[in-house]
């Protein structure tokens, strides 16, 4: 210490005090902010508890009335009903939560049915086949897709897609069949093409040059669909659905919700799955290809088993998003609290119920607390699913590091 000119002790003292003070402030502030964010769960839990413990004579609520079918007046058989506000003289409000939970899950499942194949296919393609230049452009593009606000997607789904599908049900069905088979046909044709033709259409850029091909498939389908409709469904698919399958087609239904929400969650599933797939040590794939595997075989037999947990966690995060998404369900589902398995019926999710009913519910009342219970369920579900996914992912990262070390 004697060799360096030390600053005057007062100044040093001041600096150290300031440092200690600042550290204390940052610690307090940081803990405070984190606690405030975490307080959400606590708040919901505290508000929900009186529902089951209160001694007031408000409509009696217990686990049974919430989750089991009830014999309401006017119904012969016990049923599940969510009718929190009955019209004047309509009797007691009915608080069966199951239709809401059902609607939430149904919407999420249909969203995943649409999003998972698209996202995983896209992830596999961009991790293993796509040219590096295109991939560097594709990732931010799909990130932009993720940022698309729910209210816009919901508007397009509810007011554009739903009426369109209402008019073109047969075309929608035809497209569902024609697009995959068109893609397979493209693959078959491509394999037969000579090298001279294949060079301008490399596999790495397939995502772009397939776009016009998809357009061709679209035109072909719109030309084919009336023919097919006349052939198989007697000229009217909707009448056929009603007569043969007993399904009633609601204008805004679970399929529409699934398509819209699938569009919304697909980018987040894609991003995480792609990270997992492309994080697999390169040496593994190179080894497989050296042994004569095609790239798809090495994906299926080597990359996917290694990255499986990561892909699963991507799907879980997608599920968490789909369960809590509000505006899309609100605008595209018709908001009818039904409990049917038919994907052509409307539904009402918990999140949409909260958005519609909470502003009108009396604070502290049974209805209010039940909606808070729904929020708590959403919170707990997404928090658990996300934590699980995060744990899986951090395990996976360690595994990759180990593999890298071995290779």
């Amino acid at each position, binding site marked *: 210490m004697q060799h360096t000119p030390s600053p005057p002790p007062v100044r040093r003292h001041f600096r150290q005090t300031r440092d200690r003070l600042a550290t204390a402030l940052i610690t307090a502030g940081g803990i405070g902010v984190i606690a405030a964010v975490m307080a959400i769960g606590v708040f919901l839990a505290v508000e929900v508890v009186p529902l089951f413990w209160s001694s007031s004579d408000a409509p009696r609520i217990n686990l049974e009335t919430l989750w089991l079918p009830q014999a309401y007046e006017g119904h012969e058989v016990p049923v599940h009903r969510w009718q929190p506000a009955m019209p004047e003289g309509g009797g007691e409000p009915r608080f069966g939560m199951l239709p809401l939970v059902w609607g939430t899950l149904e919407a999420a499942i249909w969203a995943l049915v649409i999003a998972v194949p698209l996202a995983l296919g896209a992830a596999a393609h961009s991790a293993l086949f796509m040219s590096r230049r295109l991939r560097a452009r594709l990732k931010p593009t799909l990130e932009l897709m993720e940022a698309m*606000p729910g209210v816009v997607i919901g508007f397009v789904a509810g007011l554009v897609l739903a009426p369109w599908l209402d008019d073109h049900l047969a075309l929608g069905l035809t497209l569902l069949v024609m697009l995959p088979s068109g893609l397979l046909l493209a693959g078959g044709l491509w394999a037969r093409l000579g090298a001279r033709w294949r060079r301008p259409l490399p596999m790495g850029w397939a995502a772009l040059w397939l776009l016009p091909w998809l357009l061709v498939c679209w035109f072909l389908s719109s030309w084919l669909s009336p023919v097919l409709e006349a052939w198989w469904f007697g000229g009217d698919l909707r009448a056929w659905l009603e007569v043969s399958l007993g399904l009633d087609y609601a204008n805004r239904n679970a399929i529409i919700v699934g398509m819209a929400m699938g569009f919304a969650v697909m980018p987040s599933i894609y991003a995480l799955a792609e990270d997992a797939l492309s994080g697999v040590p390169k040496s593994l794939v190179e080894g497989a290809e050296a042994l004569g595997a095609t790239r798809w075989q090495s994906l299926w037999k080597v990359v996917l088993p290694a990255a499986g947990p990561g892909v699963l966690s991507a799907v879980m995060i997608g599920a968490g998003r789909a369960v809590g998404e509000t505006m899309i369900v609100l605008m595209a589902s018709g908001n009818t609290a039904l409990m049917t398995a038919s994907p052509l019926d409307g539904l009402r999710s918990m999140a949409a119920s909260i958005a519609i009913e909470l*502003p009108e519910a009396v604070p502290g009342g049974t209805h209010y607390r039940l909606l808070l219970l729904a929020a708590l369920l959403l919170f707990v579900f997404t928090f658990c699913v996300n934590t699980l996914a995060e744990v899986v992912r951090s395990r996976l990262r360690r595994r990759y590091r180990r593999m890298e070390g071995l290779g």
Partner: protein
Amino acid sequence: MMTWRRPSRRAARSEGPWAWLAAGSVATSLALLALLLGLLAVRGLGHFWPAEVSLVALDDGRQLAGWAVKESPLPGGDGRERLYRTGNRDLDGAIWDWVDLDEIREVSHPSDLVVLERRRWSEFIGRLEAVETESGERISGESAWPALERRLTALEQHRASIERLRHQVIRPLVLRLEAGEASELERERLSAAQEQVREQQAALPKDILILETVDGRQLRQPLTEVTDALQPNAMGVGEKVVAWSQGVWRFLSEGPRAANTAGGVWPAIFGTVLMVVLMSIFVTPFGVLAAVYLNEVAHQGRLTHWVRIGVRNLAGVPSIVYGVFGLGVFVYGIGGHLDDWFFSSSLPSPTFGTGGLLWASLTLALLTLPVVIVATEEGLARIPESQREGALALGATRFEMLTRIVLPMAMPAMLTGVILAVARAAGEVAPLMLVGVAKLAPQVPVDGEFPFLHLDRKFMHLGYHIFDAAFHGGDVQAAMPLIYATALLLVLVILVLNLTAIFLRHHLRSRHGTLSK
């Protein structure tokens, strides 16, 4: 990270069907995104283009003028029908007309059809017969249209000067009067100004337009009700571009009319921006504070690890849950108490005990806090340890190291976080529905009245405007073009914000890439 060379010819030999389905799913996703953006852009921007008005002659001799909107198959039969927007709500009772395609004899585009935008009763489509001036003079024939245009320009100027008077002279005086501070002189000035407005209003041209619809009905339309007049079929491309840009400008700068189905979105833009700005003021310091604590101060143990995972997961909690929290804690909890303590004079009508700008921006700040924390932490983690050690070795205290070395280096990361937070907040609607957005806010939250920024007021929001116009409006079909335009605006704002964030992050990565070498 793997890097792949372009697949060689051999490897591409026979990938089998699945590889093609995978490639197709990328193509499908891109196509869907392009379709959505294209739809919004075409419909949203196309609405302002003065489209040609068609004159449709039917087999039964009826005539109608309007724009074709859509076609669909006839219910229960062969053939198709077409929907025309024909305007003239005051004459027809509706602005729509379905026409069977088979019954159309001829469609033409005569250049003398006029379209008048009016304050009420939607637009008028038809022909201009004559302009009747105040003195009873009747200008008809060829010179009627130029006369109308001249008078409309004069009317615009009158309106602008009245508006100026109202806004700049009368309003401040009225406010002082209400507050009981106005002097005798000011009272006089107020009444003089009001007199002036009355005079000017009386001096507005009282011309009457004699109009005729294409099927021959007459209408006498006072000019003061008309806001804009066009002859779309007679316009050249240049004129149409001018009219289009005027339309876009009016959309951006005016308030909504006719229960949000017409007019512009200026209050919604203003509300969205103000809310987002307030939110960033709340979220930036707290987010950075929490990130600095987690990354620089806290002991890096198991607990910190779990807290970090927890914070990260909160970004995945549905936004509606934050809305519920905001309603329960901010509005009913804190707001209710604030009302009891400070605003008890105005109870039972709540001041802060109801949704408002403050609670909405606080709720969204909470919602976006995890985004800022995660992004800032990422930036902090990227700073090489050697920089911190160097600063400490040179005798800096930890606080000095933080403020002079670490935080400046993490600046782009923080900025990225805040921009991402803003982009997320701008698109969120669900929580706002619970904590303070309004369908139509009579007063903007900022004005000349003390304290200038009214945190307790409700505000309008672009996203909620879309929801409201699409689902609570009366005539959704009439509102569709405006909803498209609003949606396009919202998407554009969010895309620009996200692109900025992506660019910043990219820039950041390349800079730190050189640093750690």
